[in-house]
C-alpha cells in the first residue's frame, strides 16, 4: 500500500497473522465486555433455555417412561431456539447504534470482524449450555455430561455459531430481522440438528463409540463448510451500507 502523505507520526504495527488475530480478538473482547455490562444476550438466552427445560419437563413428565428417549431432542431444540434469540443482537445492536460503519471504516478484514463476532457468540452459547446441562440432569435425571456428548455439543455449537453469525450479518439491515433470522436459519441447521440428536442418542443408548464417529465426522464437515462459505461471503455482504 502506497504511503499517502509524509511520515506518519502515529505508527501502526506490522501486519501478518498475529496482527490479524489481534483484530479478531479486539472485536470479540469488545463484544464480550459490552455484554458483561448489559447481559442482554446471555441473560435472554439463559432465561429462555432454563424455562424451556422446565416446560419440556412438565410436558413429558407424565407420559414418557424413559426420559433418555426424549432428552437428546430436548437438548438440541432448546439450544437451537435459544441461539436464535441471541444471534440477531450480534449485528443488530451495531446497526441500531450506527457503529457498524465504525467497524467497516477501520482497516480490518471483514473476515476478522466476522470471526470476532462468532467468537463472542460461541462464548455466550457455551455459557448457556453450561447452565442447561445441569438443569436437564436435575429435571430429567439424565446425565449429558459425557465426553462424547460434550464434544458433539461443542462442535455443533461451533457450526451453529458460524451459520448464525453469517446469517445475522446478512439480515442485520432488514427491519424484520428478529423474525427473518429463525426462518432462514432453521432449515440450514437441519443437518446439524439431526447429527447432534443422533450422536447424543448413541451415547445415551450405550451403543458404543464406533457409532459415534460418523456423527462427529458429519458435524466436523458441516463446521468446515460453514466457515469456508462464510469467508467467501463476508467480503460481499457489506459492499453497500
Amino acid at each position, binding site marked *: 500500500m502506497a504511503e499517502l502523505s509524509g511520515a506518519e507520526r502515529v505508527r501502526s504495527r506490522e501486519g501478518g497473522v498475529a496482527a490479524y488475530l*489481534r*483484530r479478531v480478538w*479486539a472485536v470479540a473482547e469488545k463484544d464480550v465486555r459490552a455484554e458483561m455490562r448489559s447481559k442482554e444476550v446471555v441473560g435472554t438466552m439463559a432465561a429462555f433455555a432454563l424455562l424451556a427445560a422446565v416446560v419440556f419437563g412438565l410436558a413429558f413428565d407424565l407420559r414418557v417412561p424413559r426420559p433418555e428417549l426424549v432428552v437428546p431432542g430436548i437438548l438440541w431444540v432448546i439450544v437451537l431456539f435459544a441461539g436464535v434469540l441471541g444471534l440477531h443482537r450480534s449485528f443488530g445492536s451495531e446497526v441500531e447504534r*450506527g457503529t457498524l460503519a465504525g467497524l467497516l*471504516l477501520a*482497516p480490518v478484514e471483514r473476515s476478522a470482524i466476522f470471526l470476532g463476532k462468532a467468537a463472542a457468540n460461541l462464548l455466550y452459547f457455551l455459557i448457556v449450555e453450561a447452565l442447561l446441562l445441569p438443569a436437564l440432569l436435575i429435571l430429567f435425571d439424565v446425565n449429558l455430561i459425557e465426553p462424547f456428548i460434550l464434544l458433539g455439543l461443542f462442535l455443533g455449537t461451533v457450526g451453529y455459531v458460524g451459520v448464525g453469525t453469517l446469517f445475522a450479518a446478512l439480515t442485520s439491515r432488514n427491519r424484520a430481522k428478529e423474525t427473518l433470522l429463525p426462518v432462514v436459519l432453521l432449515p440450514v441447521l437441519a443437518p446439524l440438528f439431526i447429527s447432534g440428536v443422533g450422536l447424543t442418542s448413541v451415547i445415551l443408548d450405550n451403543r458404543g463409540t464406533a457409532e459415534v464417529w460418523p456423527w462427529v465426522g458429519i458435524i466436523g464437515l458441516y463446521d468446515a463448510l460453514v466457515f469456508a462459505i462464510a469467508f467467501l461471503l463476508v467480503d460481499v455482504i457489506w459492499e453497500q451500507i
Partner: protein
Amino acid sequence: MTQPIEPLIRCEHVEKRFGHKRILRDVSFTVAEGEVLSLLGANGSGKTTLLRIISALVRPDKGEVWLGPVPLSSAADGIRRYIGVVAHAPLLYDRLSGIENLDFYARLYDLAEPQKRIEKLLRTMDLWQWRDDAVRTYSRGMSQRLAIARAVLHDPPVVILDEPDTGLDLQGIQLLNELLAQLRSRGRAVFTTTHNLEHAKNWSDRVFELRSGHLHQIELPDRIEHR
C-alpha cells in the same frame, strides 16, 4: 523547492442515484495536502452520500475517487488506515467508557503506542475527567467530542467530517477550530460538511455548495484579500 503537489483526495465525475432519485449528478473536486474544503447544502442534498463515497463505505454508480495515487474502486482494506471519519452517528459503543472506545479503535487500527495517543486526545478534547464513564452517560456534545477524537486517533492524512460542529458548545467549536488549523498545518487533507456558513468560512480554504447534484463554489471575498 517546488514540486507539483498531488491532491490527497481526487473525486472525478462521481454520480450516485438511489432508485430514480439522482442524488449526485457529476461531482468533481480535489483536496490537496494542508487544505480544508467545506461543503454546504440543504438537508437531503447528498452531502453525507458524497462523504460516504469518499470514505469508501459506498461505491459510486459512476466516476472514481482517488486517495493519493490509489483508486478506491480497487483499493484493499488497508486503505482505510489513511482515512478518518466523523459521521452522523458517533460510531461509539454506549456500554464502553470513553477510554475503552478509543482503546478498541486503537486496536483495530493497530496503533503502536495507543495509551499516550489516547490520553493526549482525551485531554485535548477536554474529556479526560470523564474517561472512565460509560459513553451512554455522555451528553450530545461530549459524544461529539469523543467522535472527533476517534476520527483522528490514527492520525490519518485524509480527514472526513460530516457536520463535526453539531452539538458542540462554544468551547467545543473552539477546540474544533484549533484541531482543523492543526490538521491543515500538518498537511492533512480535510473535507467537511456543515450547515453553518460562518464555520465553513472560518475553517476552509474553499467552500462549496451541493445543489441539485452539482458542486457550486462559494466565493470568500475576505479570504481572497488575505492572500
